[in-house]
């Protein structure tokens, strides 16, 4: 019969409309503007309205999510000590070559010290690939979760310098708990091995 296909299709649309209201009534208030509601909308058996009212509602970011990098620092005696040793691997692997590092020098001897004097990332160039964090041997550079970087100006504010890049290790532990725990574990194992090797002497 001509027109049957269209009617069948309209049936599907109608079901979607019905689902929207049925879900809303079933789930009640907690469906919107709650974390639980947002999570429910991400499961494989979600029905009804699917969109998220950004910025009032936000999708939870996955741990692996990566956005422009930051540098991790440890707090030692109230001072920020970056983990970075200015080895330059991140700037070598960077596909878009958006990392500039100046290695610090000892003011007296002129020899290089293992810490960065300057560190800059041009976030206009950064393609968020995550290579710097992946290949950093000191776990010093990590990918951030903060994706709201819009600004009024693109020259100064889009070049992240050292002070903008440094974030505490506790922040890192907060956004990547699984990874952080794994790192601690690996570090502890390495220490234990070192200690075991030292003892026989």
């Amino acid at each position: 019969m001509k027109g049957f296909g269209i009617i069948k299709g309209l049936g599907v649309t109608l079901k979607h409309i019905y689902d929207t209201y049925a879900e809303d009534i079933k789930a009640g208030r907690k469906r919107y503007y709650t974390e639980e509601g947002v999570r429910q909308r991400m499961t494989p058996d979600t029905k009804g309205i699917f969109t998220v009212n950004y910025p009032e509602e936000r999708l939870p970011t996955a741990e692996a999510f990566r956005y422009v990098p930051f540098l991790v620092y440890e707090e030692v005696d109230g001072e920020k000590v970056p983990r970075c040793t200015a080895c330059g691997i991140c700037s070598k692997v960077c596909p878009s070559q958006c990392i500039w590092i100046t290695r610090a020098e000892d003011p007296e001897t002129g020899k290089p010290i293992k810490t960065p004097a300057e560190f800059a990332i041009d976030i206009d160039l950064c393609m968020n690939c995550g290579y710097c964090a992946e290949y950093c041997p000191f776990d010093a550079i990590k990918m951030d979760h903060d994706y709201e970087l819009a600004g009024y100006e693109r020259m100064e504010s889009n070049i992240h310098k050292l002070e903008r890049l440094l974030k505490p290790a506790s922040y890192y532990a907060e956004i990547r708990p699984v990874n952080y725990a794994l790192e601690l574990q690996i570090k502890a194992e390495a220490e234990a091995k070192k200690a075991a090797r030292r003892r026989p002497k």
Partner: protein
Amino acid sequence: MNEQIKEIKSYEQEVLTRFPDWAEVDQREGFQGLLVDQKNLLAMMESLRDEFGYDHLTSVTGVDYLQEEQMEVVYHLFKSTGGPILEIKVQLPRSNPVVPSLVGLFPGADFQEREAWDLLGIRFEGHPNLKRILMWEGFAGHPLRKDWQEVFYEGEFKPYEDRWPEGKVSKIEDQNPYQENIAYPKGFNPETWIPDGEELLFQGSIPLVQDDPGIETEQLVVNLGPQHPSTHGVFRMVATLEGETVVDLEPVMGYLHRNHEKIGERNTYAMNMPYTDRLDYFCSMSNNFAYALTVEKLLGEKYRPPERAEYIRVIMAELTRVLNHFMAIGFFLNDLGAYFTPALYTIKERELILDIFEAVAGSRMMCNYFRFGGVVRDLPEGMEDHIRKLVYERLPRQIDELDRYLVENEIVVTRSAGVGVLTPEQAIGLSAVGPVLRASGVPYDIRRAEPYGIYDRFDFDVAVRYHGDVYDRFLIRFDEIRQSIRILQQAIDGLPKGDFLANKAAYKFRMPKGEAYGRVEGPKGELGFYVVSDGTDNPWRYHVRAPSFINLTGLREMSLGEKIADLVAILGSIDIVLGEVDR
């Protein structure tokens, strides 16, 4: 290497026995294929097509060997009945690279030869329309030549020296203000310039045509694009109309051109991985897959991915196919005029798959997930169950619903059935791949014809449809989603425990000299990478055989004789992504 004479593959030997005088084996270390002299090329290609059955010329490209003062044209052919790829090479002097055009034998060589002319300056004698395709007419030089330098030139190879240990940040645009950004050849004035022989076409003038005696008709040139809302990006179709009927059509592209291949040759091997994401930005996982396979071919056995990684790769590649086809179906309906309701239903399913990608790879679209010898990280906790639920319950249900919703819809059927027909012979000749080829009745699928990864372990059917019209190209995407779901179900059930990366994460590789052509059956068709290594950290040649780009060769054939209202539907049915077309 040992001094053994190079192993000759049986299919190459066959050709060698037939042409003892014309062809010889490429003896360079790490290279495959046969060398042919350019004066015998046409006769040999014809015989390869008609006698041997190598009827599908899949890739034409060139390599610039600067030190050897040589240009090389590389052809890849396969039989549409399956089997390995035959590689034919022609060596030419760099000062005057001229080679006979193959367009007469394989119409699918059209765009690719134009591209090789445009980017490398290899002249194809006898090509009916040899002009630039990605760069603009009047561009100075051929950018893929090794001695050509871009305006924002920083160095021959990455990493650049000035980043460390005394890096001083600066914006590159400060070093080269916009005014001096463009170089024109001598005597070229962009203000007054009109492309050769196209004065009429580009200015929309109307030539008079005497059709019937007594009735005067006019032809009309209509430019669809470059930014038509229904086209899939910045793409332009110059259509010549007689009444409402299309009598000629020329796709114009290159608006999104960034010379991906030149960037790729400046990059190291590892750096290219995130760049491949940006080719076909819907299917970054498939792009990663193809590139990883190609480089693994060069690296050899040591970089064979462990079992678990192979399974994860298949799962990701098939999820990508599902999401791409969902999008293709949705946006095809957009092109037909069903504005965004169907598209949103399909985007909904895509969103669930993108959530998986975000949790696994860290980014929804620019996944950068594959590494040479595996994948970058393991699936996070709970992900297996999530994928299982999706592929066993959600996706089969949703594809059935979409089927009920659209397939029998009379408007869809009348708009698309019998429109834009491509016969099997045409499809093969025009080097069509993927759903476009299979909807024309050629059941060619690389996953079956030349299995890569672990695809030989899965039980699935090659989707095929026989009418070759827009409706069949629409339907075949449903079939392929169903087959992909079958593969996904087997892969998630068979997923073993274990390692996910063969070698410790390295950013530098000891790359042997040689070449490799790796290809996968991407959602849009055969995605191939041709990489030539000279033993350094950076590839000497990096070429992408982009399925969307080469499928567009058939656009003219499909559109001739159709109504102008159907053009957008025909374009939608090919399913192109401009990031890949323009590269």
